């Protein structure tokens, strides 16, 4: 068995690298660098969020109250579990357990699709409540006793909500696609304990997307009424 593992690894060695170790280190470095660019990409959005939250705190509180905390929390749990199964999948690859790896990655995909499904439900809710920016935007607190204090600026809150979660969802979809690619390659026997770097790198990407959500959830769903929080 060991011989064919090494043969698989050698087959995977690209011509411009001296050895597998150089290839592995290089490609991992590449994925980290790419994730750094993603931080800057989301960072721009987070910056816009921070500026407007400081300027229109009341509106942000009011907008945040219209978020469904239970669905959001469920989604957070779903993603954390998916990161767990992803990490275990990488470990399975390292331990020469290809079938286990495939199973864990399939569960990861299910969790990812679950996240997207719940997000879809939330989006539908917001859409029918006229909480999508544009000519049809109309914000009501939903509590007749307490009308909105700063309804005008909640449109900015919702613009950011849709932009940030939408961009995140797009990255999730890409992530699901990447994990699927790994599953298919794994089914063809492409990965061995000597060569599982692509699995690791996709894992890194998946964890990053998870981490972005961990920031998004409190920022969008859990804005405290007290200013200065």
């Amino acid at each position, binding site marked *: 068995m060991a011989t064919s593992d090494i043969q698989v690894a050698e087959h995977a060695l690209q011509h411009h690298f001296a050895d597998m170790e150089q290839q592995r280190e290089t490609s991992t470095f590449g994925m980290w660098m790419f994730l750094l660019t993603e931080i800057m990409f989301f960072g721009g959005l987070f910056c816009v969020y921070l500026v407007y939250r400081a300027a*229109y*705190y*009341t509106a942000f509180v009011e907008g945040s109250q219209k978020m469904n905390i239970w669905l959001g929390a469920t989604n957070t749990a779903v993603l954390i579990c998916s990161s767990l199964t992803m990490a275990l999948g990488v470990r399975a690859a390292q331990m020469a357990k290809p079938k286990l790896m495939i199973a864990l990655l399939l569960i990861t995909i299910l969790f990812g699709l679950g996240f997207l499904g719940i997000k879809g439900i939330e989006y539908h809710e917001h859409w029918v409540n006229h909480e999508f920016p544009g000519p049809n935007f109309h914000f009501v607190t939903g509590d007749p006793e307490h009308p909105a*204090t*700063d309804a*005008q*600026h909640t449109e900015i809150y919702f613009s950011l909500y849709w932009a940030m979660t939408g961009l995140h969802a797009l990255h999730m979809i890409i992530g699901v696609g990447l994990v699927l690619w790994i599953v298919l390659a794994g089914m063809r026997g492409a990965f061995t304990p000597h060569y599982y770097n692509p699995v690791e790198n996709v894992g890194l990407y998946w964890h990053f997307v998870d981490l972005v959500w961990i920031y998004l959830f409190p920022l969008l769903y859990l804005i405290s009424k007290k*200013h*200065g929080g």
Partner: protein
Amino acid sequence: MWKNFPLFPERASAWAWQVDGLYFLLVAVSAFFTLLIFALIFFFAVKYRRSVHPHAVQIEGSLPLELTWTLIPLGISMVFFAWGSLIYFQQARPPKDAMEVYAVAKQWMWKFEYEGGQRDINELHLPVGRDVKMIMSSQDVIHSFYVPAFRIKADVLPGRFTTTWFRPTKTGTYHLFCAEYCGTEHSGMIGQVIVMEPAAYQAWMSGGSSTGTLASNGQQLFQQLGCSTCHRFDTQGRGPNLAGVFGKPVMLDDGRTVVADENYLRESILNPGAKVVSGFKPIMPTFQGQVSEENLMALVAYVKSLAQPQGKGTDGNEAAAPGASNTQ
């Protein structure tokens, strides 16, 4: 100087000579270094050309030289930084007794309103020798108020007042340009600044306005829009008493304190929920979409003119007395 081939516009404001002075110093220093580099390159290229100097002398570097040509430019730069900053600081601090002119920029024209209520389109009439503060906003996109002869420029923004000030020192007619690209007729959004002798200016002013001063227009709007319903001049109002509020610190309900400047007044009219005064309920409706830029300026001018309670008009502003028993 150089009438047929001018290198700089007329100097028509109090600090134009400072700006030009700094500019010419920069030109001189830049010319020196440029010529130095050009000369050295030329000299080395000729003196050490291959045919007469076939063997290069390998020189690694020189720490003293590196430090020299790092620290000397740094030192010279700091001089330019300091002088330039001093000028900018002056431009950022309009004197308290400056006369105020309000400007509304829109695609593609300038509308000016003077305190006396006169209006101008694309022409700005000013008396020579007096400080002038411009308070400006845009009805649509970003524009920029630029008078080369005064050496000032300030962007004019939608959603906010921006200010600049200057003191014209020379009578004459000068270019006014919009200096921030704003669409089709950006290059047509030009006008004239006409600086006049005091007597001529008085004569022009009295040709003036049929609608009253800017502040009195604001007072009318204050009534018409129902502001006076809540903003009474006693302690009974559902809204704060606005007498003397301009320029003073205001405590908000979330603990912050802000200064009531023009932008605060503007925001309070258009988005009252953003900053609620401590001790009051957030019940003021927004007037977004109901007041034009000109109306906003009139309202702001009116509030600025309101004296302190108990008639303490401190800064010589026209205390358009609300009338002792004016309640609604």
